[in-house]
């Protein structure tokens, strides 16, 4: 199994910072030599998790607050935790995967609501907890196994 030391990446809570943060996190995964498909899975799940934090948890304080990505790797794949000190999830849990309804007329076609669906579809385990004043979203991804 490839060796990956635990890593942490810190970024500002803005859409532009998400790009840099993602690039840094993906660079940390280089030792795993992920194929295109697995790398795409990781980047997509992480992007959706970070976008959610920027759009919701940090919506009122984007420049002030940082987001931290922590990653580690084991026999069951990649473990990622996204931590922010923004607003808590409204009902204390991560939103469920709602399959987008595409059986509608063109003008009613959904333009959003795909984020959590993608996270739940690609990650094998999704856990949210409020730890003090921080949100912890833990994701397990079956890559690099």
């Amino acid at each position, binding site marked *: 199994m490839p060796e990956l030391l635990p890593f942490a990446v810190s970024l500002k809570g803005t*859409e532009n910072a998400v*790009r840099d943060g993602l690039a840094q996190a993906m660079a940390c995964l280089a030792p795993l030599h992920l194929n*295109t*498909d697995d790398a795409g899975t990781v*980047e997509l799940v992480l992007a959706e998790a970070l976008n959610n934090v920027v759009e919701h948890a940090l919506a009122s304080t984007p420049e002030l607050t940082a987001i931290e990505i922590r990653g580690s790797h084991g026999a069951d794949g990649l473990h990622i935790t996204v931590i922010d000190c923004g607003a808590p999830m409204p009902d204390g849990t991560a939103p469920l995967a709602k399959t987008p309804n595409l059986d509608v007329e063109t003008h009613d076609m959904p333009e959003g609501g795909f984020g959590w669906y993608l996270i739940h579809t690609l990650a094998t385990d999704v856990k949210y907890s409020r730890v003090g004043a921080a949100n912890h979203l833990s994701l397990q991804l079956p890559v690099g196994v």
Partner: protein
Amino acid sequence: MELTSSTEHGLQIVTVQEPRIDAAVALAFKDRMRDTTEGGIDTVVLDLNHVQFIDSSGLGAIVAAMKNLAPDRKLILAGLTPTVDKVFRLTRMDSVFGVFPTVEAALTKLRA
């Protein structure tokens, strides 16, 4: 957000000259698509072969572009790279758009 446009055989081909359509540029993409396609009558083929990554915001922006062209004009997708293709497949949005491996394949099919 750089888009280039050409017309071939009665189709407008819009090529995204960027590696990503993500939350940071989704709004700019929507605006540029509206400007680029405004006033035309042709079906639009969106060439995504330079785009390596798209997130749900980018996907939403492409859906918005399709809705903006409807009901008179269609939006067809071509040149999806692996991760972009994955997003369309997982959300089943590939069933809403016509999707072709390349612009050439789209032209051949749409001309026939």
